C-alpha cells in the first residue's frame, strides 16, 4: 500500500465528531499517523519517518479557508451586535440574530459573501462570475427546487436519492462553518447521524489566500486523492454493484472502460481520484461521483457535467468508446 494512502486512511478513522469542533481530530490523526509510520518503517527508520512526515503532512493538515489562521471569528459573529451605536449585522438589521451571527441565519450569512457580492470569495450561486466554470458548480439563483442542483432550504426534509435520512440542506449541512481539516471543510459526517466520518483528501496547486478564488476553486487546480465518493455516500448511499455505475473504480483495466480513450481525450478531463500521483490522466485514475456530477449543481439534469459543454454523451465517451 502506498504510504500516502495508508496515511489518508488512517486519518479517516477519526470518528463521527464534527471535525471543526474537535481539537483532538489532528491529535488523534497525528498519533495514529505516527504509530502507522513506525510500524511501516521499523524502530530504526526515524529519519525516513521524519522526512516522510514533512512531505505527507501537507495535504493532511493543510486546512481550508475559515480554518486555522484564516478562521476569523468576527467574520461571522458579533459579541454585542453594536459598535459605535451601529448594528454589527452585515445587513444593517438592528435586531440581533441567533448564535450571535451577523446575518439572520447561517445560510444568509454564507451567501452574503458567497453569492457574488464579495469578489474575494468563491461564488456558488449561478451565474458564477469569478470563473467560467467552478470546480463544484453552482446552485440556481432562484433557490427553487431543481433537479440540476442540490436543493437548498427545501420546504420539507427530503431523502437524498439513494439515501435514507431526510434532510433540509443548507451550506452548513456539508461544510463546517468553523472549518476542519477536510477538503473544503466538508463535515466528515454531513448527516450528523453518527456515521463513521469520512476524510476527503485532495492536492491543490494553489490554496486560498482570501483573494484568489479564480485560481483555487477551479477544476484544474484540484487533484482528488481519496474519499470523495465515500463522502457522497454518507447521504446518498453506496453504489449498488450491478445497479449503479461503478464508483471509485480504476479506469485502467476496467472491462467496460477504455483507458486509451480516457488518456487521449482532447476534452477537459472530468474529475477523478488520482491517489498515487498528481497527474490526470494517468493509470491510477478512478471514476468517482463527481466525475459525472457537479457537487453543487450545474446547468444540466442531475447536475451532470458535460465534458464538451453541450452533451451528456461527451462525458460518457471520455471513458466509453460507444
Amino acid at each position, binding site marked *: 500500500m502506498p504510504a500516502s494512502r495508508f496515511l489518508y486512511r488512517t486519518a479517516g478513522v477519526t470518528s463521527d465528531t464534527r471535525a471543526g469542533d474537535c481539537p483532538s481530530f489532528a491529535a488523534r490523526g497525528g498519533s495514529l499517523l505516527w504509530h502507522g509510520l513506525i510500524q511501516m518503517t521499523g524502530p530504526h527508520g526515524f529519519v525516513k519517518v521524519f522526512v516522510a512526515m514533512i512531505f505527507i503532512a501537507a495535504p493532511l493538515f493543510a486546512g481550508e479557508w475559515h480554518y486555522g489562521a484564516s478562521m476569523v*471569528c468576527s467574520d461571522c459573529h458579533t459579541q454585542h451586535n453594536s459598535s459605535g451605536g451601529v448594528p454589527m449585522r452585515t445587513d444593517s438589521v438592528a435586531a440581533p440574530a441567533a448564535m450571535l451571527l451577523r446575518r439572520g441565519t447561517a445560510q444568509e450569512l454564507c451567501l452574503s459573501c458567497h453569492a457574488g457580492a464579495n469578489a474575494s470569495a468563491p461564488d456558488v450561486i449561478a451565474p458564477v462570475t469569478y470563473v467560467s466554470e467552478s470546480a463544484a458548480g453552482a446552485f440556481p439563483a432562484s433557490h427553487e427546487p431543481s433537479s440540476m442542483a442540490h436543493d437548498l432550504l427545501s420546504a420539507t426534509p427530503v431523502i437524498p436519492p439513494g439515501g435514507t435520512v431526510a434532510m433540509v440542506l443548507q451550506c452548513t449541512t456539508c461544510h463546517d462553518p468553523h472549518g476542519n481539516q477536510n477538503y473544503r471543510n466538508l463535515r466528515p459526517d454531513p448527516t450528523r447521524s453518527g456515521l463513521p466520518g469520512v476524510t476527503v483528501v485532495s492536492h491543490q496547486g494553489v490554496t486560498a489566500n482570501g483573494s484568489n478564488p479564480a485560481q483555487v476553486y477551479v477544476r484544474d487546480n484540484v487533484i482528488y486523492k481519496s474519499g470523495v465518493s465515500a463522502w457522497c455516500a454518507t447521504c446518498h448511499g453506496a453504489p449498488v454493484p450491478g445497479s449503479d455505475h461503478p464508483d471509485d473504480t480504476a479506469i485502467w483495466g476496467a472491462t467496460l472502460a477504455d483507458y486509451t480513450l480516457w488518456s487521449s481525450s482532447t476534452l477537459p478531463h472530468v474529475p477523478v481520484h488520482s491517489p498515487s500521483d498528481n497527474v490526470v490522466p494517468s493509470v491510477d485514475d478512478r471514476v468517482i461521483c463527481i466525475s459525472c456530477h457537479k457537487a453543487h449543481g450545474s446547468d444540466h439534469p442531475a447536475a451532470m457535467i458535460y465534458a464538451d459543454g453541450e452533451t451528456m454523451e461527451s462525458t460518457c465517451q471520455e471513458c466509453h468508446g460507444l
Partner: protein
Amino acid sequence: MKKFLVVLGLLALAAMPALAATDNYHYNTTMKCSDCHSMHASAHENLPVVVGMGAEITDPNGGTDKSPMYFPSGLAPQHYLLKGTDVCASCHKNQTFAPDVVGDNLNGYVRSAGGVKEAGDTTGGGHVIGTTTRPPGYDATAAINGYFAAGSVLECYSCHSPHGGTAFRNLGPYQMRSALGSANVGKVQPTVSKAAAFNTATDVTILGGDTYNFGTPANFVNYYGRDNIVYANNQAVTFNGTTSTNRMDQFCGVCHGAFHGGSETDNTTVADGTAFVRHPTSTKVVGALPTTYAAAATQAFANLKVYQATGTATSTTDSPGCLTCHKAHGNNNPFALIYPGTLAKDTTEEGAGVYKNLCKTCHSMGGTM
C-alpha cells in the same frame, strides 16, 4: 496600670488591620476630606501647586498622614470646593504614590482594571474620560434608564464613589445614587472581601488582603494587581431583566444594558429561547460547552479572569463575565479586549496572544490556537 496600657496598645495594634480590612481607600478611616476639597480655595497664602507626596503632615484628627497636598494657586474656585479641575487625575494619573489608572501603568505591574483613556488617545480601547458619547449597549428602554442622559459626561465618579463605600473599588453609579433606590443599589455594587483566601460569599476577593500601603508603589500590586483579584460566580442577582452570578456584570449592565445577557433567555429575540443573541455572562459554565480546549487553552484560560466557584480557576465550574474579555478601565487593544497568551503568564495588560485566542480559549472550533 502599666500592664493595662501595654495590653491596650497591643489591642489597638491588633485592631488596625481589622479595621483596614473592611474599608476601601477614600472610605472611613482613609477618607480625607481635604484630599479633594478646600474650604476656602486658599491656603498658605496661595503657595505654588504641589502635586505629589507632601511631607508628613499632622492630621487634625490625630496622627500623621502622607497626603498629596494639592494647594490651589491662583485657580478659580471649583464646584463642590474641589481643589482642582480634576482632582482624581491629580493623584491617579502618572503618579507613584497612588495607583496610576490613566493609560499605561507608571508603576509597573499588571493592573486588574488596566487604564482609562483620555480624549484624543486613540490607542486601544476602554472607557474614555470626558466622553459624552452614550455607552455602547446603552439601553434607553431598560428599567434603569436615564443614567447616562444626553449630555452626560463620563467621569471617574460615574463608576467610583468619590466618598467611598463598601463595594469593591468603591464602585457605585454615583450620579444615580438616589435614583437607583436602595432596593437596586445592592444589586449593582460588587461586594468584596479582603482575605488571604478566596471568599465565595462575596463577588470579589482581594487575595492580597489589606496590605495596601498608601504611597508605597511596590505594594500596589497586592491590592490592584490582576493576580490578586478573584471573582466569584455564586452571587446570583437579577436586575434589569438579567440574571448574573456576579454583581460586576450587573454593574456594567447599568450603562451597557443591551450588551448584557446572563442566559439564553435574556435579551433574546429568538422565539424558542435556545440561541444566544448576546454573549452570555456569568451564568454559563465554560466547561458545559460541547467542546472546549484542554491542554492547548490551559495557559490562555489562566490568563483570563473568569468568575470562579472555588479558589482555583476551573473550566468545569467557572463562568465568563464582562471582565473575562474586557479590562474595566481599558488597555491598548480594541474594545479593551484581552488577548491571552498560550505559553506563559501574560506580563502585559493586553496579553501576549492574538484576538482569536480570546474566543478560542472557550470555543475550540476552527483549528488550533
